[in-house]
């Protein structure tokens, strides 16, 4: 471990150099980044890494336990499990990114509006978030996904349509403290409109915590989407989506423990990666918090 002194802000260092330095010295950040990079690469290079097809059945090799040829075994239809998990990474990424974009778009604009205008607008928006909080998330997500008709795309919509509430609360709180600052007053004094102040002056100032939260939100989104697929409301077989694979493997649990075990491990690793990365990013983006954490 390096000491505290060489990671505190250096003279002449820009903010982002400082962020990079702090991330660099954080072991969990490195692990998180590594997991996310591996996921990205394996999703991109899936056909290069494995020669098997994720969907094509091979009935000669049904339920083969992990061997040299099939490191994680095969499922009921003789499909290589490792291949399916690698291709499943594509869905995980797609879900993580898609959901976060939807949540961010809704949550940030509502939060900005609520925090900036205050008054009745704020009350209405915050009551709306209370409503979203008062229905258990999976209950609402599965209802929406189910009524839309299942499939990966609808899962992204369903999860995205619900998780924005946390963005709204986060952004509103940040805006409340930012809008009292002198540069906002200055912008108003030179005659900027409300929209311009919100987007050009306040938004850049609150973007850091939003990004850090997004890494955590992507992890949560992957968990929820997997749960929906597991319940049969998301990706449908033979899609190699991890939650759907788990649901599939459950039926063969007695004979083949590996089918229901490895996709779960994959979900866990990826979510852990996003959690590590998000936590480290949050600490690195906020030097004050970083110091506080080191001291405690």
């Amino acid at each position, binding site marked *: 471990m390096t000491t505290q002194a060489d990671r505190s802000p250096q003279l002449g260092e820009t903010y982002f150099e400082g962020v990079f330095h702090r991330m660099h010295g954080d072991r969990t950040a490195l692990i998180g980044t590594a997991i996310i990079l591996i996921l990205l690469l394996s999703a991109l290079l899936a056909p290069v890494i494995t020669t098997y097809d994720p969907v094509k059945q091979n009935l000669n090799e049904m339920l083969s336990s992990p061997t040299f040829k099939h490191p994680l075994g095969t499922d009921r239809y003789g499909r290589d499990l490792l291949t399916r998990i690698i291709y499943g990474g594509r869905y995980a990424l797609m879900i993580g990114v898609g959901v976060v974009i939807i949540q961010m778009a809704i949550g940030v604009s509502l939060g900005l509006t609520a925090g900036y205008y205050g008054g009745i607008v704020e009350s209405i928006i915050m009551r709306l978030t209370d409503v979203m909080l008062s229905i258990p998330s999976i209950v609402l997500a599965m209802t929406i996904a189910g009524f839309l008709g299942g499939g990966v795309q609808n899962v992204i919509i369903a999860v995205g349509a619900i998780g924005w509430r946390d963005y709204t609360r986060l952004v509103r709180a940040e805006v409340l403290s930012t809008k009292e600052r002198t540069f906002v007053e200055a912008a108003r004094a030179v005659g900027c409109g409300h929209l311009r102040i919100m987007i050009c002056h306040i938004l850049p100032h609150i973007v850091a915590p939003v990004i850090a939260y997004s890494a955590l939100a992507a992890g949560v989104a992957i968990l929820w989407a997997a749960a929906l697929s597991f319940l049969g409301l998301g990706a449908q077989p033979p899609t190699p989506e991890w939650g759907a694979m788990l649901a599939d493997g459950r039926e063969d649990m007695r004979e083949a423990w590996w089918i*229901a075990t490895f996709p*779960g491990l994959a*979900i866990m690793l990826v979510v852990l990666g996003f959690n590590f990365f998000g936590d480290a990013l949050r600490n690195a983006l906020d030097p004050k918090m970083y110091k506080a954490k080191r001291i*405690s």
Partner: protein
Amino acid sequence: MLKYVLRRLLVLIPVLFLVTILISSLIYFSPGDPVRVMLGLRAQEEAVVTIRAELGLDKPYYIRYLNWLSNAARGNLGRSLQRNEKVMDLIRERLPATLEMTLFAVLIALVVAIPVGIISATHADTFIDNILSFFSLFWVSMPGFWIAIVAVLLLSMHWGIFPISGRGGPLWTAKGLHYLALPGLILGIRQVAIISRLIRVSMLEILNEDYIRTARSKGLAEWKVVCKHALRNAMIPTVTIFGVQLPELMSLGVIIETVFAWPGTGRMLVDAVLKRDYTLVQGIVLVYALLVILMSLLVDLLYGYIDPRIKRE
């Protein structure tokens, strides 16, 4: 105190109102003609018309909402479209099982999380603390349904300690408890992982406060300092996070119920969504929302009890 309770209740009314709008709109926003989706392609025209009239889908939206609301307020949630039974009866039949599991999980969460959090805080940055941190981080990252599957595989199928699935009877019977133990534990331990971390953080902050130093310097036993002076203050943020986590606990409950074939409302909801039983789905979602609102009210009251400053505001 009464004033405080009333004020909390008043805040809940607009939320409840919006929740009912959202729930009653669920059918409205589902794509396609829900009645045709429900009855299938070869449905007879009269049947379509009858069901549509029964659901009130031939009326304008606001009339539908008002009808639904006035019926729901009188405890009439309509008939299930697939089972031909009253939604209220179906829910009444299943709700005890769900409440039982939730209550069990909440108890586990509190009974385990508080000591674990205290131990982590008083032994901060030692081996024990690191092990507990590591465990909770992993546990939070694991999908709940996967933990359930692996637990069934090992504990039920392999070693035969717990039954594989189903409910054995009411909570207070030995058989009921035996069936409840595994799903209840899995549901509860996830909350332990989250809540114990939070107790740790707030305890660490509080243990550095001046009044703790005062308590120590006047010669109080360490356990008294920790459990009486520090814990009560650490409970304030804990109760808050507990209120936030309750809906999440019920979310996971739905999934756990499905894995363990637990005869509760969660599993019935999954079934109803898959079969597009719109009235049943509406009814169950409403019950879940009411439960969460009721529990958040309880949490608020608890909050007022733990921190007397809040009541006086």
